[in-house]
């Protein structure tokens, strides 16, 4: 494959992603792997995969983002997730609004202006509450496959109330609910509600400007989007490849660094 003009890599706490874009900023190649403890080795290997798949041996210009962005020694520039998600969302959807990104380790709300510029943001970076890790930990405890989590939650007719979004306390609350005979589905729905309420509180700190957009691995979970709609009264828009938005945005920043402007979706 030729024609790739710029690259982005997003080294996240759960997954590592590489995206290549062609002229105009269209995504034309992507790789995604679970993040490994030896990040540097994984980065080298993934860049080699990218080179092999694209025929671009240099994989440059390359912009790195994400939790492990400073580990990417091959990068021409490092940029935070906030900027990259904003770029990616604007190129993917073509409008501003409020972007909620739920990552494995943190979650963030970014307010985008009409031209995709970052106007404000809020980050939950202090604990696992309100992040993908919260759902991951609890679904393990409930023996439900992560991929089916949202589906199972949405199938529930009742909903258990969870008073805590702290992963540690939520887990003991779940044990207690199970011991009292509450079913898995209502617990899961309650769990999703707790996570979404945490996100809504963050949205309020920057102010909700519609449309509401959702990205990150958790965006593939339909219950999060549905409950977010219920809690905010806004329709939730999920961009294509929501998990790749950071790497996509990084590739767009790299594209701009060589004087090319990304086009419209």
């Amino acid at each position, binding site marked *: 494959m030729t024609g790739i003009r710029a690259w982005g890599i997003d080294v996240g706490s759960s997954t590592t992603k590489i995206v290549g874009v062609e002229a105009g900023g269209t995504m034309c190649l992507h790789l995604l792997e679970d993040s490994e403890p030896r990040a540097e080795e994984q980065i080298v290997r993934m860049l080699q995969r990218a080179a092999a798949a694209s025929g671009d041996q240099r994989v440059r210009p390359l912009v790195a983002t994400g939790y492990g962005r400073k580990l990417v020694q091959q990068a021409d520039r490092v940029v935070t997730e*906030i900027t990259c998600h904003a770029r990616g969302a604007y190129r993917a959807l073509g409008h501003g609004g409020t972007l909620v990104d739920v990552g494995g380790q943190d979650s963030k709300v970014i307010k985008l202006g009409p031209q995709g510029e970052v106007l404000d943001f809020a*980050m939950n970076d202090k604990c696992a509450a309100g992040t993908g890790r919260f759902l991951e930990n609890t679904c393990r405890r409930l023996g439900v496959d992560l991929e089916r989590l949202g589906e199972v939650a949405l199938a529930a007719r009742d909903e258990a109330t969870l008073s805590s979004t702290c992963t540690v306390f939520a887990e003991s609350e779940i044990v207690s609910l199970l011991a009292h005979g509450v079913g898995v589905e209502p617990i899961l729905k309650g769990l999703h509600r707790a996570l979404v309420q945490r996100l809504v509180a963050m949205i309020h700190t920057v102010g909700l400007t519609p449309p509401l957009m959702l990205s990150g691995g958790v965006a593939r979970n339909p219950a999060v989007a549905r409950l977010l709609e219920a809690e905010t009264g806004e329709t939730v828009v999920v961009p294509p490849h929501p998990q790749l938005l950071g790497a996509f945005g990084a590739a767009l920043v790299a594209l701009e660094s060589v004087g090319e402007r990304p086009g419209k979706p």
Partner: protein
Amino acid sequence: MQPDVNVAPLPSIPRRRDLARAHHERGGLVAAVLPIHYPRALLRAFGILPMEVWGPPNVDAARAASRLQPYVCSIVRNALSFLESGGLQIADLLIVPHACDSLQGLGSVLLDFVHPAQPVLPLYLPRNPAPEGTAFLADEFRALHQRLAEVTQRTPSESELMQAILDEEVADDLLRRVHEQRPTLPLTTFDFYHLVRAREFLPLDSFVSLARAILAMPAVKSPPKIPIVLSGIVPEPMDMLRAVDELGASVIADDLACCGRRLYPAGRSRDPFMRLAESLLGGSPDSTRGSPIQDRLDHLLGLAHSTGSRGVVFHDVKFCEPELFDLPVLRRGLRDAGLPSITVEVDLNDAVSHQARTRLEAFLEMIA
């Protein structure tokens, strides 16, 4: 990004311990002074060297855990731990201004439970504005004068006191000029604070010489950096300032309780105590003095506009009630005025976290 390489060699700053020893050898006393506002000139008139205690950072705070509530800030927690582990032995007296509930609580804990070897002198600050506040504070200073006379067994004459006040006013004026001149000083943000915070413990003459040396530094036209205003109590951990430099930004003005909020103007009265009170209350608005939030907002906007700053970083100590109470209103007001802001919460004992750095980095990308 690398910090600006166009920086001057720094004047060296003596260590606190050496200064205290030298002062003792000259027959003077050393006072450990807790934050934030106090009458420096009054202490100097008694031959006392004030050494401020802002924590200090990186102290094993466990010693204070049994005496303080878990929600007390790390400045107070560290100060108590530091004292109990012998870190303030060098001081002959302790002065505890009641800047906030936590410091007031510390004053009570010291007097009622800890009973340190040194006398503990509380100082009440008014919450009401002038003129009642000024008169109240002048009376507080008179009471402190009385206590200092008991502790030192000497009483400076009124003219000695007035001279000490006038000398401090010169130092305050120099400090203000250093702050004003900062955009053209050949100093990184880190180095700037390293130098100006020496005011917290240097003898008067040493500080005056230092300030003059800073003002005499050749002006530079710095490469373009992102100008920001820093607000909060104290720029600790100081590594946060290194991060500001590394990320290509520059603190061009501050609203820090330990720095920019203590650029006191000279008092006007002939009565020394009134003059001291006028000066202290003439500083810029401060949450710990109960200033109206609108005054604080106007001040921040004024600082940002006059220096061309692109945003405000609130660098707040965790659990700092006076600052955190004002924060939402201040941020909303700045947003309404089109000035972006961010909050970074810190604990004096923690290294700058990856998350805090990312937050700052993302903010700088946003306003660049």
